[in-house]
């Protein structure tokens, strides 16, 4: 395995600290830089940047405007790959949306849709496409395939890369009452290009843990160390926290602990 890049998300409120930081190889971009961001030129000049914006949901074909936006951002960032999510969060007619990542039904019909639309997007991009797994808090009974099988078939049919979000796998294992390592082994780890790691926190609505812009626990870092040994094609690990509440100390300490773990 080649040396892994260790990085974080670009949090604009920490721009000044990130410009001066050591030990961060890359920054993932969840939003385009604000017009008045004084740190953006230095950030762009200094870091490898990964496009990780919302481009669209691949249950439908991306329209020309969305593809052009993706191409423009990819060029601006000089990104080595373009990331999108396995998500379907707004209705076909746009009347309802969730404003939060939400997985599709794991069915044959949705598999065919995602394969077709991902291949179409990939053909319009100059960089490889990677796709990130999204956790489900509940199973929908109309799903026909286990998520890892659905993902395996998707990657086989599209030759896209896998952005493995480890807390997402950990959460699903938690709510299924499985050991995370056992659930992880079901996923197509040979396709993994990038890994996300972060903390989880108790959520009072869910009455259990959920994704949070928090430092990874020792347990999560142990899970990362385990996962990385099973992802032979992995190129990068990203501390997945993007929030105005994130402090510079938490970001830098997390990246440092990830580096120590690996």
């Amino acid at each position, binding site marked *: 395995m080649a040396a892994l890049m260790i990085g974080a998300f670009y949090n604009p409120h920490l721009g000044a600290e990130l410009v001066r930081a050591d030990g961060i190889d890359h920054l993932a971009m969840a939003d385009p830089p604000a017009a008045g961001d004084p740190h953006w030129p230095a950030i762009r000049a200094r870091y490898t940047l990964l496009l990780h914006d919302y481009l669209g949901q691949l249950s439908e074909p991306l329209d020309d405007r969305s593809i052009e936006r993706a191409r423009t951002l990819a060029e601006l960032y000089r990104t080595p790959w373009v990331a999108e999510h396995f998500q379907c969060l*707004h209705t076909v007619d746009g009347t309802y949306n*969730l404003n939060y990542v939400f997985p599709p039904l794991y069915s044959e019909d949705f598999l065919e849709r995602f394969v077709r639309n991902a291949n179409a997007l990939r053909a319009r991009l100059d960089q490889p496409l990677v796709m990130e797994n999204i956790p489900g808090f509940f199973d929908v009974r109309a799903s026909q395939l286990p998520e890892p099988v659905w993902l395996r078939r998707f990657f086989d049919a599209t030759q896209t890369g896998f952005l493995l979000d480890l807390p997402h796998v950990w959460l699903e294992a938690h709510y299924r009452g499985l050991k995370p390592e056992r659930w992880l082994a079901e996923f197509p780890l040979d396709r993994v290009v990038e890994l996300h790691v972060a903390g989880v926190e108790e959520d009072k609505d869910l009455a259990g843990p959920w994704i949070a812009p928090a430092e990874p626990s020792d347990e999560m870092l142990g899970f990362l160390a385990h996962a990385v040994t099973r992802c032979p094609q992995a190129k990068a690990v990203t501390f997945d926290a993007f929030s105005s509440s994130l402090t510079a100390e938490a970001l830098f300490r997390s990246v440092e602990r990830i580096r120590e773990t690996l």
Partner: protein
Amino acid sequence: MSDRALQDDVIRALADAPYRKSAAWRTRGLADPDRVERFARFLARHFYHERVVHFFKYSRALARVTGRMPDAGAAIRYLGDLLQYEAAMMVVEAGPRIWREDPESGGEGAGSEEWSAPETVEGTVLLELAYDLPVVLPELLRPWSEVPQAPARSTKLLVARSPRGRVAVARSTDAIAALLGLADGRKTLAELAHGAGLEVRELEQTLHGLVELGAVRFSTGS
């Protein structure tokens, strides 16, 4: 029912509390109702938290003053206007949006449809403020020790949302306010120009800007 329609049904259940309680949803038995309810509440809290943080960032910048001084209101005379402005931004942003272009439509924006029967877009807000907030807003987000002050002068602001959900704010005038009140999708350009006290050419320029902001659209088929 197609898988896509089933997914839409799940999305609607998570986004629409009355539907979630309806027999139409509950009898389908698509998912554990307790889990769906919990996740829906989580999504709602997340939605509002994210927007409160974003749209009330100016109030947040003032919190160190308002939190420490009982008479802070006297030091920040424009606080009422500011809260009105922030609330308007949040409400305007919450409306429906186009997520994906219909390939058979001509797109959005000025010039995409015939210039007839302009109509004020539902959700567009016109604020009438006692203080000139646009002067002070950038100052609030920079480091300061003395509370930045807004000039006390009557100010009209237009807050609108584009079809794709971008919220924009622009200074408004009496003519624009009159135009927004009159544009009902039925009146002709000449009628609007007369009502708003504008020349037709001036009206067209104004409408162009309002369409770009998302405050006005043009009815089709009239």
